[in-house]
């Protein structure tokens, strides 16, 4: 009699788990399909939001990360503005002055005073195009 009840209990426990497994499977499928797996950045950056629809078309070779504390990273490696400048001009020279494009992933809270030295440096080494990464917001119309 005792054995029977314990077996019955175990079956009941497993039965209770099935709704949990259903939900977990659904969540798993949602995250697998809806999310995009991306490499994490060197530090957290919240890009500015923009209403203009211009999806990312192609990957840009050089990506500068910039947060409100003034931290800088080129292609996910922390470095100073001087290092970024010398690295970019070196690569420009090594590619026979080919056009170089730079993507800028800057935090929305970065001030113009912080941004100006970086942009001045980029114009000095004659970067062809600076692309600012923004985040799409849902338009309320």
């Amino acid at each position, binding site marked *: 009699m005792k054995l029977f009840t314990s077996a019955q209990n175990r079956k009941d426990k497993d039965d209770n788990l099935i709704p949990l497994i259903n939900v*977990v499977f659904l969540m798993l499928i949602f995250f697998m399909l809806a999310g995009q797996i991306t490499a994490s950045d060197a530090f957290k950056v919240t890009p500015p939001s923009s209403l203009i629809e211009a999806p990312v078309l192609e990957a840009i070779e050089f990506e500068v990360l910039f947060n409100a504390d003034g931290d800088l990273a080129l292609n996910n490696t922390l470095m100073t503005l001087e290092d970024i400048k010398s690295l970019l001009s070196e690569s420009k020279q090594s590619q026979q002055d080919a056009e170089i494009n730079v993507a800028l992933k800057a935090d929305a809270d970065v001030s*113009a005073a912080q941004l100006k030295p970086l942009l001045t440096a980029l114009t000095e080494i004659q970067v062809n195009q600076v692309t600012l990464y923004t985040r799409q917001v849902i338009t309320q119309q």
Partner: protein
Amino acid sequence: MQLNLNKGIRRKTISMTPLIDVVFILLLFFMLTSSFIKWQQMQLAVSGPSATSVATSDNPPLIARLSSDGQVSLGGENFLSNEDEALKAFIDRHEPSRILLTTDEETSIQQIVSLIDRFQRLGATNVSFNVD
């Protein structure tokens, strides 16, 4: 005999615990690595001291000023955030070859991006950020 047959059909139930473990680990992995941000690109034209300005049109560039409290002035006239029509009329009247955007030191990138957005929406596509 029938009793024996019934015993043969009865199977041992599969334990659910390892399955749930694996599924939870997969779920955690996808939750932590997924990103839902929709990235967009904005071409940021920069006009600095070394940039050579090419006059493509007879119309001179207009100077826009953006202060850190969000006040916008274009060509010396102030525009409030809800005066889109007046701003559009002003842009249409002058048809500037480009707009040079100068900002206060404390202005955030978000404010700059929002203003460039606004200019583009109102038909002025050639906005360059002044770093002088």
